[in-house]
């Protein structure tokens, strides 16, 4: 996973609240097979006039079409667990999303893809939104946990220390568990087989699936 240390960019302002993952990435595109290229479908239904003369969606309007930071409203990424919402944001070029609150599954999906979600209180959020609307660059410094404005001011943000480390070092969560915790997992399984054996399906139970087929029409 790509490491995240500092990032400087204009931020795209999207002040709407409750932008759920169906709006971020409409369901019919979930049939697409790859992570790559999903930025094309990001906010698809909102981007009605991508390069025409009329008013365009903010992400198709310079300079925000190059933005790597998204500032948006409350309850961003609620709803469906589809990780495509994060893949589409990342493919579009976003590495940081700032909002007053997020859907929980979306929030944790971000960290698996090198995208930093930042939760800000109302006043700070309004501050950052204003800078985004004025197309003033922001610097996200993850190590220092601050958002710096071009006028030198800075806002601090919170982040879970483990998640911070995985982003900064670009760590592979699976690799970490396999390297550090295998013995503990094996010990747990042995204990569970003793204490709660019904949680492990037996060979005999699994024969239930032996005759799966296309018998109904």
């Amino acid at each position: 996973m790509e490491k995240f240390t500092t990032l400087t960019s204009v931020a795209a302002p999207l002040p709407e609240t409750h932008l759920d993952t169906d709006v971020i990435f409409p369901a019919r595109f979930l049939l697409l097979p790859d992570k790559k290229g999903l930025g094309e479908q990001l906010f698809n239904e909102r981007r009605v006039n991508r390069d025409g003369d009329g008013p365009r969606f903010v992400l198709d309007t310079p300079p925000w079409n190059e933005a790597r930071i998204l500032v948006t409203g409350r309850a961003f990424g609620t709803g469906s667990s589809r990780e495509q919402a994060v893949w589409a944001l990342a493919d579009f070029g976003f590495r940081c999303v700032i909002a007053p609150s997020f859907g929980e599954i979306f929030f944790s999906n971000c960290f698996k893809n090198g995208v930093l979600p930042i939760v800000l209180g109302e006043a700070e959020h309004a501050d950052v939104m204003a800078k985004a609307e004025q197309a003033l660059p922001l610097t996200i410094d993850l190590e220092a946990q601050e958002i710096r404005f071009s006028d030198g001011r800075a806002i601090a943000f919170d982040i879970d220390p483990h998640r911070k480390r995985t982003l900064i070092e670009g760590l592979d969560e699976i690799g970490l568990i396999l390297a550090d915790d295998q013995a503990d997992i094996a010990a747990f399984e042995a204990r569970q087989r003793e204490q709660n054996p019904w949680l492990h399906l037996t060979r005999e139970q699994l024969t239930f699936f032996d005759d799966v087929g296309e018998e109904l029409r």
Partner: protein
Amino acid sequence: MTGRTLYDKVWDSHAVKTYDDGSTLLYVDRHLVQEVSSPQAFDGLKEMGRRLRRPDAHVAVADHAVPTRLRNQPLPDGLAARQVSRLVDNAKAFGVPYIPMNDRRHGIVHVIGPELGFTLPGATLVCGDSHTCTHGAFGAIAFGIGASECETVFATQTIRQTKQKRMRVWLSGAPGPGVTVKDIILALIAKIGTGGGFGHAIEYAGPAIAALSMESRMTLCNMSIEAGSRVGMVAPDETTFAYVKGRPLAPAGAMWDRAVAEWRSLASDADAVFDTEVELDVAAIAPHVSWGTTPEETLPVTGAVPDPAAETDPARRTRLQKSLDYMGLTPGMPLRDIAIDKVFIGSCTNGRIEDLRRAASVLSGRHVAPTVHAIVVPGSAGVRLQAEAEGLDRVFRDAGFEWRASGCSMCVAMNDDRLEAGERCASTSNRNFEGRQGKGGRTHLMSPEMAAAAAVAGRLADVRDLGN
């Protein structure tokens, strides 16, 4: 030591280890695998040359993209067919049981998990799908995860998690006529908001819960995610045991007795403390329908479309206006005047046999309005076969409904079942988001009997007005 909640007990019994930062490596007993969230996870495993730690802990089924008619023909070549065949290939390559579309065990993951006895009390269960909270109805910790997390579960059978706060939703009273658990959960979401359960694991408790069937408990827990919570649970009791007993993958014989003894100890202790408590008097709830584009934008069907001008908070006013614009509604209009084009009865929220029985009882001897196109999509093949054995398919067909095969269907519009732009639907599903049932489609959420009543009336209707 103060008492522990149901959530605490199941959590503690699955904690492999606790890290320095207080997070937990949680053991995962069960993983349901579907076609939308698994391909990238399997790809990741292949790329790294990793294997499944326990192939026996997963079951795979394609539910989102499958068609609900013409199932005797091969899927038309295209993205959906490729997505399904990718799941078939991956399941085979990694040794996971796969249930084909025309198998008698097929269905929506959250319907078949319980049906097969794959879902058990006191277990941990995940799926790359946000409505995994459904399985909490059994007293399991069950939650939706992303595709990357599915990969972690495949490879390690664990997931690193921070414990949620605990919320108890206390339900008292008995529901009035025409009021179902769908109305209760919609009323709860309207009350606490779509962020109300954020950061919390919800436990539904109180006298009204004891009276609920397992299927009703599943409907209740299913929409916990719409209240902002990944986890919604009900403590297992005699109703739970009676449902699980004899299911194909449930423990049997002496093992059953041992399991039940353990499950009886899972209920929250009397002195357990919840971080947040919410109370709801079920007797005071009327049948609900959603009118907007988030599940909290829901009102009793006797109400009227809200007026943004009456909203003092500017952000809320904008949000309200946006919902009304999308939904094509005028402030002050009685909800019962809203005409509909389509009706969808189905989904992991309301696609079970009791749902179909109740909808059929409303439809019996009546007919769908001529302006309405109505479909019923059983949540599983098991539900479909049971309904056919009871003659419910005839009732639906006679009333003018199309009778389909199992799948997610118009809940998510990934197959051919969808709304066209501007079409309005009375739906028993769980999400009324913009475009959820098809680009530009407009969704009103409600119970199966309310959807049946709407089908007959051709507009949103109060099932209590139909009489018997």
